[in-house]
């Protein structure tokens, strides 16, 4: 079931200082991940990813994901070391057309060497904060008996 990116996370994703990692499955079933700063959320709460290399492993994997209904994941890490996990399903790519051309021109304005090859739309399926403190508190609450005995003695 799909979920939407909220305003807070959208701002985090659009912040240039946020590091965004896109993990995909290769056609051979191996895991691949790469830092992709061209990920952001659109007004509808979906993920948009701009791909600049025709034969990058990520591009290959995203096509393969649309073809064979595979999911991907995105990890976003802020300068304050807060992090979020987003699982998503690539549902569309635009490799031409007016909508694509608008992104192409924008990418070229940002950097004249940019040569956009594809715009991917990724439908979020699951989102949660992965920041250490948050995960530790959640884990403690959910699994109160999974800790070493010395922790209880403290």
């Amino acid at each position: 079931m799909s979920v939407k990116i909220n305003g807070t996370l959208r701002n985090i994703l659009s912040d240039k200082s946020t590091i965004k990692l896109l993990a995909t499955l290769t056609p051979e079933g191996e895991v691949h991940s790469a830092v992709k700063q061209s990920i952001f959320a659109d007004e509808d709460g979906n993920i948009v990813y701009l791909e600049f290399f025709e034969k990058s492993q990520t591009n290959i994997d995203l096509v393969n994901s649309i073809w064979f209904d595979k999911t991907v994941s995105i990890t976003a890490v802020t300068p304050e070391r807060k992090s979020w996990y987003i699982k998503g399903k690539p549902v569309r790519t635009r490799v031409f057309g007016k909508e694509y051309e608008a992104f192409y021109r924008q990418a070229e304005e940002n950097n004249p060497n940019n040569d956009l090859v594809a715009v991917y739309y990724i439908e979020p399926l699951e989102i949660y904060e992965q920041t250490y403190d948050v995960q530790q508190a959640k884990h403690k609450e959910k699994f109160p008996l999974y800790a070493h005995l010395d922790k209880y003695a403290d």
Partner: protein
Amino acid sequence: MSESNWRDQELSYEQVLDKHNGDISKFTVLKIDVTRRGYVYSEEAAKVIDPNKHHVEPNDFLGSTKTTNSSPFPIGLVMRDGTTICSEPGLSTIVRQRDPYVIELIDNKLYITDQGRVYEEVEIWERPDFYDKVTSNGTPMWQIASARPQRITIAPGTKCHFWDKPGNGCKFCALFSGHRCDEGEFRDEKYFQDVTETVAEALKQKGRYASFHMTSGSTLSGREIFDDEVELYIKTLKAAGKAIHSDKFPTKLVASAFSKRQLERMRDETGMTGYVTDLEVLNKDLFGWICPGKTEFIGYDEWKKRLYDAVDVFGRGQVNCGIVAGVETAQPYGFADEDKALEIVLKEANEIAKHGVTFSECVWTTLPKSYFSKQKTPSLDYYVRLALGLAEARRRNGIQENIDDYRRCGNHPNTDLARIEKW
């Protein structure tokens, strides 16, 4: 009219997907089947078509299947994975043996449907911006160039001279049929100026074009056969190159089988980087029957040799052999058994691929103005197995698909599959 029981005689789209589960994209299979069977717009869906926005071809660009007025329908569709369907509905329904797919309007989106089942969303190709412009000579630019979603196409010669001798044209072909009996068009300096201006205008649409494509019918004249055709391409490509400002750029010339000397001229005098010449059918005996003009003037073995020579000139992965996939089953001389046809064709494909040549596979459709208009095309499963086999021949021989892929053309199921191949 379709045969009433055709669905009982072959595997359906779903059954073919099940059979090849995980081996081929569902979009590629659907593209093949929509091309093979044809499609129509429902009445409601047709209301969406806007010639000011969508790519409705204003004229009879390659002199193919239209006669007086252009089709009112757009010339292609795209699915959500970027796979294109290079076919228009006007060609679909009269002579094909199977029911066409129906494009339906559902919740303001267009979908490919069949017997009420909804398959994939499609969008209509957009009209090139330069179609509304005129050159300084007063020529409408749509008369100079056409386009696919990511390539610009110029066809400087509008006549195929294999047709000069009655019955000598390729039997599946309807291209240039509108010009079979005239002298073609004269190309003077004004024309080449129009080419430069049209390409320059097209490139103002940033991000639209990833390849320059040029093709024509065969011109047999010259000191050596095809010399005049080569000369025309050189002049046209030089004219286009003036707008591109690069010594070499992504190009695909689909042309006659030139000699090595002619190919070296093309390489040395123009920005050309990719070459396609079409054996059409990968069997010498059938080539003789289906392509009598090519057989008379060049012959199957020499055509193959020229493909190999082209690899020497342009490099591995820069030379493709166009084939009309499925035409090897045409009757009465083609293979009646699909398994036998695949065995023979793929064996020959592997032999050719060893020399660095890859394939541009067009799905054979029985075009109304072709000699084969009343033939029956093969099953969907045949086309899928052929696409997979051709892709495997490329991979096995370590050839990259550089010039005729989903982006630079979009008409070939086997090269669409290269999208997920690692280099």
